[in-house]
């Protein structure tokens, strides 16, 4: 304890009550407040109230030893009063410092006056307040009228009201003059800690201030606790105090910043502590919802720091929730007044909204002002372009539009693509979101576990199209294409003019991403392709190759995190490719000029680490057995590496990796060479950087193809995306250099070479794209998919019809034609796909692999293929597979000899078989079906002992209900979901004991038990916690990516000094 030398006698009472009037102890807390402390002390010294002692508590001000010593200041200005001086060992905050001081002095003062060091009372203020307290027996806390420090005619506060969320409301107009309009004593919800007179007994009963709050809103909490204990809080307008509001206006340095973080944090704590239980039930969720809404608003306002503040506030309360509950128990123990009696002192939502909107409008005005300038500039450019679009340019534009329509006709007018990863959207608009959140998976073997947040992102589009699944897919691809174009456009935006940017964007859109990705149905490559230009752009900036004005490392890290997370959400290994590219760029930069500062290289690593973190908890499972990265470079890595066999440095340098029209690809290196030869200065350096990326990509692909390293990504398309972006950038630089640099060069060989090269490249582009345009080459699945969207749609229609009759089931699609021709980590090459009853839909792409279940299913399929069984229906029935969609091919006869399968449809391209022996997804049987035990992974190789078994009750397995009434034992519940200890089953209230159910879940129902059977997968609080953290993380990253600097803290409501 650090106390000033010989404080006022600590062993003797500080103040003694005189006859007739209560003794008052004023406690002044100061922290870096020398500037105002003198006035404060002088005002206390001059109080007309006789029985006043003053205790000054220095809350660990760093400058207290400065001359004059703080204690000396106190002594000098409190000559008429008995006084004391104490100093806290470390900063405890306003309430904490008072609690600390009062615990160390003995006082029998009847009243306590708490005063900020930047507040100065009128000489009769204490007398008036004490008189009010004495007059109203039920009043425990009284505050004065607060006016401005500099202009006492201006009102600052006459008591505070709050809304249901603890948001403070002054009830004053902006810069309202004090004309006596509020000079009537009134009861208020709370008075601020600027100056408040508190009954000492009540203060003791309330157990003092909440020291955890440190700063801001601790006054709300104290008054709220006094109110629910049955005491009144009043304002005595005849007492007046000036207040400098030093902390909130930033005039005083403090460790309690940012202000809004502490305000939000403490408000939520105050609500949790003081609101009654029924109100709390809906108040806290609403508060969190409002906080999230606010975060989204801050994205619009491009204030990532504010988003972080909100997130921190929520996290702080989450971390201290148990302690808050203890504090709540203490506060509620003395409750004497129900919440409804306090409602008269709270404000309506409309009042709060009006106040809030009024403030935010100022900020929006500022933000939108910037937007308006931007829009105006673009509008004038568009008008200028319109004026120029006459004659030949207009004709060229028409030709380009017609060419695009022709080339993309397969995409624009065909039914929704159903090839590779371009699967149709589920019929329900929210299906992807539900698949993300629910353990009751309709696809795969249903193992609950983290899923890629891509489901959330891709799930946006059906909502945008109001549930129109077909339109959602086209919109998604369109947006991805647009994103890819814009990314390549931005890549060279700092070094070339508009024609160069357009060239870069167009080359990239029509090249690898648009052509190869769409033809192969590689959604992962398309998403990665859309994200890659932004990643490369950020890497170039962070490694110092491009350094625009106003470069903001934080914003760049945010962009890098988001872009790399988007790419990795479909192709996790791309983070390694990006990291490799960063190393190559940094090394090349070190060769050419000064290397980038270590801080920025660390920021690059941090950006990619954040990208990984934004995909948690799914990204934590990448390397687990059967995780997406383990699939690619685990035991099956050779099958992925084999797809690289026809690619390597040579094909990358010739623009043939990823696959594009051959001649078009050859135009890219020509443009790249022109860029290096012609460009000057920063353009040339950027061209060299892009060539570094291309060479490194080629090297990587060669190493993978030769088996020297295991593939970090699943296909050459994914591995070559950065090279494709780099080539597009080189194309843009070539055009830019031709327009901007060539004329500065002296006449020589360069001019004809550049001209000839550009002409040759233009010819190659036209010759390469021409046939593709005429053939409608940008067609989903155009690259060798024999099974088209129409076939898949036909099967889905049949299955949908069966759903009407049979309810939900699983369908097994056998044949490589149903899977992707271009493998990806999420959807590797496979000769079978397991789907829900609606057929192949986009959520199938994200089915979590279930190790034991997958192995069992493979064994069953092998038994069918090898012909060792003709009861494949029963084996597959254990997986709740009711239908098999069989691609025509060499293995078909084996399936046709299975005695459990009936032929539903016999078409040229496929056979649809119905399984006569499927088990229900979940049902109560007389015992565990023996074929299930036979399918135990790694278990006995003996034949499953097939015998009849009675199904007694089927559990209704719709999304909303998993229960079966009137279930009774003895028996066994079997759930055809991959084994997971999280599944629970109970009959009535009695939980069931687990059985060894092979690959799935089974429970024993003992005899003499009856009731409703319920199967559930309870979510833990942690599960919800990470969902929330994930949302907050994305919001922060989005805000950071769009940030333009830190806004000043807002003075005003709720922010006290």
């Amino acid at each position, binding site marked *: 304890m650090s106390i000033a030398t010989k404080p006022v006698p600590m062993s003797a009472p500080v103040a003694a009550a005189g006859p007739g009037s209560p003794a008052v102890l004023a406690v002044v807390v100061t922290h870096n407040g020398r500037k105002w402390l003198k006035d404060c002390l002088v005002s206390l010294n001059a109080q007309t109230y006789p029985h006043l002692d003053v205790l000054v508590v220095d809350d660990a001000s760093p400058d207290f030893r400065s001359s004059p010593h703080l204690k000396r200041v106190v002594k000098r200005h409190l000559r008429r009063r008995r006084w004391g001086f104490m100093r806290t060992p470390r900063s405890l905050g306003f309430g904490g410092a008072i609690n600390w001081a009062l615990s160390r002095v003995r006082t029998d003062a009847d009243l306590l006056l708490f005063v900020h060091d930047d507040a100065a009372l009128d000489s009769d203020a204490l007398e008036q307040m004490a008189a009010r307290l004495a007059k109203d027996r039920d009043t425990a806390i009284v505050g004065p009228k607060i006016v401005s420090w500099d202009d006492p005619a201006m009102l600052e506060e006459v008591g505070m009201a709050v809304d249901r969320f603890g948001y403070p409301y002054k009830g004053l107009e902006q810069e309202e003059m004090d004309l006596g309009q509020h000079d009537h004593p009134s009861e208020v919800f709370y008075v601020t800690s600027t100056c408040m007179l508190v009954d000492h007994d009540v203060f003791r009963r309330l157990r003092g201030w909440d020291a955890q709050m440190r700063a801001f809103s601790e006054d709300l909490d104290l008054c709220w606790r006094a109110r629910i204990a049955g005491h009144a809080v009043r304002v005595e307008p005849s007492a007046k105090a000036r207040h400098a509001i030093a902390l909130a206006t930033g005039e005083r340095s403090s460790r309690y910043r940012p202000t809004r973080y502490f305000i939000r944090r403490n408000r939520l704590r105050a609500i949790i502590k003081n609101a009654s239980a029924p109100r709390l039930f809906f108040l806290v969720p609403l508060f969190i919802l409002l906080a999230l809404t606010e975060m989204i608003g801050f994205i619009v306002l491009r204030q990532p720091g504010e988003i972080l503040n909100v997130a921190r506030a929520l996290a702080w309360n989450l971390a201290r929730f148990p302690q808050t509950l203890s504090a709540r128990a203490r506060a509620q123990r003395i409750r004497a007044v129900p919440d409804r009696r306090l409602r008269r002192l709270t404000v309506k939502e409309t009042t709060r909204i009006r106040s809030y909107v009024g403030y935010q409008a100022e900020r929006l005005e500022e933000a939108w002002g910037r937007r308006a300038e931007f829009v105006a500039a673009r509008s004038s450019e568009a008008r200028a372009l319109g004026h120029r679009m006459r004659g030949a340019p207009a004709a060229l534009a028409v030709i380009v539009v017609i060419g695009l329509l022709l080339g993309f006709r397969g995409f624009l007018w065909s039914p929704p693509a159903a090839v590779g990863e371009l699967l149709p959207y589920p019929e329900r608009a929210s299906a992807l979101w539900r698949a993300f959140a629910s353990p009751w998976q309709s696809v795969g073997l249903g193992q609950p576990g983290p899923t890629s947040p891509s489901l959330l992102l891709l799930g946006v589009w059906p909502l945008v199209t109001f549930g129109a699944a077909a339109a959602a897919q086209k919109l998604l691809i369109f947006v991805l294409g647009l994103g890819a174009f814009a990314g390549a456009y931005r890549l060279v935006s700092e070094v070339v003019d508009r024609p160069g940017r357009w060239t870069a964007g167009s080359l990239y859109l029509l090249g690898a991403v648009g052509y190869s990705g769409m033809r192969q149905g590689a959604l992962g490559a398309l998403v990665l392709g859309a994200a890659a230009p932004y990643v490369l752009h950020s890497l170039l900036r962070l490694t110092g190759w491009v350094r625009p004005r106003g470069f903001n490392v934080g914003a760049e890290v945010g962009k890098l995190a988001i872009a790399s997370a988007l790419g990795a959400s479909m192709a996790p290994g791309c983070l390694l490719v990006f990291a490799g590219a960063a190393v190559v760029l940094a090394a*090349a930069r070190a*060769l*050419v*000029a000064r290397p980038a500062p270590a801080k920025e290289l660390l920021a690059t690593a941090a950006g990619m680490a954040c990208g990984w973190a934004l995909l948690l908890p799914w990204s934590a499972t990448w390397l687990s057995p059967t995780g997406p990265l383990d699939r690619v470079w685990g035991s099956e890595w*050779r*099958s992925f*590496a*084999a797809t*690289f*066999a*026809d690619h*390597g*440095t*040579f094909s990358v*340098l010739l623009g043939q990796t990823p696959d594009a029209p051959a001649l078009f690809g050859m135009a890219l290196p020509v443009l790249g060479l022109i860029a*290096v030869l012609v460009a000057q200065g920063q353009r*040339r*350096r950027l061209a*060299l950087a892009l*060539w*570094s990326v291309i*060479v490194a990509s*080629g*090297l990587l692909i*060669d190493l993978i*193809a*030769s*088996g020297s390293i295991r593939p970090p990504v699943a296909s050459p398309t994914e591995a070559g995306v950065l090279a494709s972006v780099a080539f597009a950038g080189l194309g843009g630089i070539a055009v830019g250099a031709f327009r901007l640099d060539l004329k500065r060069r002296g006449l020589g060989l360069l001019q004809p070479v550049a001209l000839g090269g550009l002409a040759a490249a233009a010819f190659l582009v036209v010759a390469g794209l021409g046939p593709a345009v005429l053939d409608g080459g940008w067609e989903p699945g155009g690259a060798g998919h024999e099974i088209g969207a129409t076939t898949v749609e036909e099967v889905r229609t049949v299955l949908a019809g069966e759903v009407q009759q049979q309810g939900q089931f699983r369908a097994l699609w056998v044949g490589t034609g149903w899977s992707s021709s271009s493998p990806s980590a999420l959807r590797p090459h496979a000769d079978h796909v397991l789907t829900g009853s609606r057929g192949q839909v986009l959520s199938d792409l994200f089915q979590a692999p279930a190790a034991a279940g997958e192995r069992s299913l*493979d*064994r*069953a399929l*092998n*038994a069918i*293929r*090898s*012909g*060792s*069984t*003709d*009861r494949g229906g029963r*084996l597959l029935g254990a997986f709740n597979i009711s239908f098999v969609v069989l691609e025509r091919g060499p293995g078909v*006869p084996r399936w*046709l*000899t299975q*005695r*459990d*399968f*009936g*032929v*539903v449809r*016999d078409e040229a391209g496929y056979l649809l078989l*119905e399984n*006569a022996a499927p088990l229900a997804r979940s049902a109560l049987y007389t015992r565990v079906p023996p074929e299930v035990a*036979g399918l135990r992974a790694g278990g006995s*190789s*003996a*034949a*499953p002992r*097939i015998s009849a078994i009675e199904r007694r009750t089927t559990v209704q397995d719709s999304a909303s209900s998993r229960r079966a009434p009137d279930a009774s034992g003895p028996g066994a519940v079997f759930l055809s979901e991959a084994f997971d200890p999280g599944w629970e089953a109970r009959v009535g209230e009695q939980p069931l004991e687990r059985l060894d159910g092979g690959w799935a879940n089974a429970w024993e129902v003992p005899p003499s038990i009856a009731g409703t059977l319920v199967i559930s997968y309870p979510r833990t609080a942690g599960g919800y916690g990470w969902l929330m953290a994930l949302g907050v993380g994305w919001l922060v990253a989005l805000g950071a990516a769009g940030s333009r600097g830190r806004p000043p803290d807002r003075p005003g409501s709720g922010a006290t000094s």
Partner: protein
Amino acid sequence: MKERFGEWILVVVLGALAASAAAVGAGAERVRVSSGEREAAPFVERAVYCPPQVDGPRVRQDLGISAETRVPGTVQIEPALRGRTGLPGDGLIVRPVEAPAATNVVGYSAPVAASSVMTTTKPTGIAAASCSPEASDLWFFAAGSSELSADQRLLLYNPFPDEAVVRVALFTPVGERSKANLADVAVPSGEWREVKINRFILREPVLSATVVAGRGRVVAWRAMLSTSDDRGRGFELSLGSTEASQTWYFPDGSIGDSAAEHLTVLNPTGQEAVVTVALSTSRKRIQPPELVDVTVPPNTSKDLDLATIDTGIKADDFGAAATLSSTNGVPVIAERRIVYTGASAGVAAEVGIRAAGMRWVMGPVAPRPDEDSVSVLNTGNRSATVSIELHLEGGEVTAPGKLAEVTLKAGLRKEFALERVTRGRPASVVVTSDRPVVAERSSYSKARRDVSDVMGTAVATPSGR
């Protein structure tokens, strides 16, 4: 200036890297993945489908069930017999079928092969056919007739959970004969139908048939009861073929005064087929000039009467195997029918074997046969070493020395008499060879005055053998 120098350094580094990577990449071996062997199938439960009894008085049927491997297993006959019966490795069990229904013989833990032996009393006859390990939507039968003395029937069995609807098409030497009543023959799930062909078509001396399932799958056999001297007297039963082929093998065969062998070729395609038939005896391979490049018009069948052709086979070469090949690549179906008129009279018919194998299993083809033999044809161009084992009921296995490791020259056939080993006891025959061969078993029963035969069932060679 310094930056300019750095740029040049970078260009040189990149160029060197690219050149070396391209050079190394061009020479380096790429990772390739061949389709590896599948994981051993752990679940063994497979049925073979056996024919229903033909309609007629006092028809009796026995099933000979042979283990395909040395792995012991259990067998269940559905639906005629309830309960499972143990089947020792390489064992044989013979079970009579009481009900007239078609049956499934289900092998658990180890695969089984089965043959059905049926005896009739009107006319007196005996016939055997393999039980089918598969069902199909397409079945072919090349031989057949609708003459007055020939009562031809198609036995259709649907063991699947969905109803099958089949169309029976008939082919004569002049073309296809469609019959509306045979266009939609429904075979309900788990049931069988017997289609009596003579009720639908007038007399045709050569009448091939196809069974095409428009919906579902079936198993089809052809049965014929012959009662004339010309066509022979007796009962014949043959399992159809599920696909056409360019090559057909018939290991057994009889050419001489006391036997009339016919090869009927069905060309179900829209192209003309050109076929050549070669004969193999135990001494030499013969190519009769008249059997070279025989044309079979599209959608027709053609009967080749080997008895009327100068084959050059001497009396001591009585047995002769036949190999039919389509020389223009048009797949056909070939079925052989032999009419025995000597001391061992009777009729027997079988669809040929499409592909050679290393191990063949043949169940009993007659109860207590008086003559029993197995014929093996070496289809390759190198000598094969053939061994024959007989598996008797109760798990007894006999392998007489003279049947062990017999050398069979390329392209030749050999007939092995078994009756002295079996002595009337039911036995299954397992033929193993170190090179691809084909095998057929034939028996004669004096009591039934008929010949019956069955083509071998190719099975996988067990590991370690």
